[in-house]
Structure formats: C-alpha cells, structure tokens
C-alpha cells in the first residue's frame, strides 16, 4: 500500500526511515513534505481542516502514481496525506520516491506533488482570528502541473 490518507498525525521522518530501511539498490531517494503553515497571505492561521472525498482521493492519487511510474523507472513510491484538523507545524503531505539514479527520483517527486495539488480532491479550510475561510486554488499550481504535460520521461 503506497497511498495513505489518514486523520491521524504522521511522523514524516519516521516514514522516511522506514522507506530507507534495507534499500541498497536505490541510489536516489527524493522527498517532499508539505507542512501546515502558521500564516497565509499575512494572516495568522491557528488551524486548518482538510476535507476530502474518501474513495476518490485514494483512487486519484493511485492514478497519479501510475502515471509517475509510467514516466520514470521508480523502485518505490509512498504518498501519505492528512485529512481532518491540523495544527501549524504538522505535516500535511509526504511524497517519497526511490530510483536507481537521482534525476528520476527528483523529477517524479516534483511531478507527484504538482499533480496531487491540482487533481487530488482535498479542500483546505483555514481558521483565523476573523473566522474560517476556504483556501483558493492558485493559478501557479495549475501552471506547475501543466509543465509536465509535454515533459518527456
């Protein structure tokens, strides 16, 4: 099982330790950890709730992972994503890739988080002193995902 969506906090470093254990033929391991920030656009954020679409989320991340494996020779992939309520400093998402060489690991990691940001059905609701607000999708995320459309493996 390489995709996990969970309400419980996770320890990103412990996930990386487990992913590395016994790995002797993967020369490159890349990771991205997205962390809940304590501010957004200058406004302090005290907590965040991640709503998602159970069932579709796992299926969609699975499709994104399949696409990454089709493009790069990956030994392993792990995606862990929180749902529910998070506090600043808690990891939201972890993407881990392993390949024989670094380029495939790094590119696949960037691809996975770019696609996940624009395709996985999650929505962030921030808690601020002025109340709750839904985070707007960013055009820059769409642009980041689009750059992979014509990228060769």
């Amino acid at each position, binding site marked *: 099982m390489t995709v996990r969506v969970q309400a419980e906090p996770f320890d990103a470093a412990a996930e990386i330790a487990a992913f590395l254990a016994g790995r002797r033929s993967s020369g490159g391991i890349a990771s991205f950890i997205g962390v809940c920030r304590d501010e957004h656009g200058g406004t302090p954020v005290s907590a965040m709730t991640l709503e998602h*679409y159970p069932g579709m989320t796992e299926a*969609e991340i699975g499709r994104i992972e399949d696409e990454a494996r089709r493009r790069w020779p990956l030994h392993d992939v792990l995606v862990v994503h929180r749902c529910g309520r998070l506090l600043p400093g808690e990891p939201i998402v972890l993407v881990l890739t392993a390949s024989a060489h670094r380029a495939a690991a790094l590119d696949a990691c960037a691809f996975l988080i770019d696609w996940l940001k624009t395709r996985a059905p999650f929505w962030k609701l921030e808690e601020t002193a002025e109340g709750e607000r839904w985070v707007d999708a960013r055009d820059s995320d769409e642009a980041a995902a689009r750059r992979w459309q014509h990228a060769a493996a």
Partner: protein
Amino acid sequence: MLKVRYFAWLRQRVGRAEEEVDPPREIATVRALAAWLGERHPRFAEALAEPGVVRFAVNRAYVAEDAVIRPGDEVAFFPPVTGG
C-alpha cells in the same frame, strides 16, 4: 436514482453533503443534472454560472460536463482542489 455529493464551500452553499435524487429520463449528462439541481439549490446555480468554479466527478473519477450519467451513478460537484 442517483447519489449526488457536494464538497467544501459548494457543500456549504447547497446546505447538504449528499442527496439521493431521481431526475427525469431526459437528464442524461452531468451538465443537465447540474442545471436540474440548480433549480432546487439557487446558490449552487450561482456557482455553476461562474466559469471554471465547479469540477465534476462520476463514480469517483473526473469527467467533463458532457459525460453521460446512468442510474446508480455517484455524481460529485466540488470547487477546484487545494490539497498537498
């Protein structure tokens, strides 16, 4: 019968997370279903009128607006995603 689901602020606007609906036979696409649901939920109709604000999924996979719907399908409407 169809199961319809709403997420994030679209869910809040509609006032419910999901509903079972039984639209007439001529409601054959996601676009038609959305318009039909908009008659019941005016604030959902407002969101639909804005281009690019509502995304569509049938049976937990993204589809285009002209995707055909069949009895028993789960149809979801939601704003652009903001995870990761």
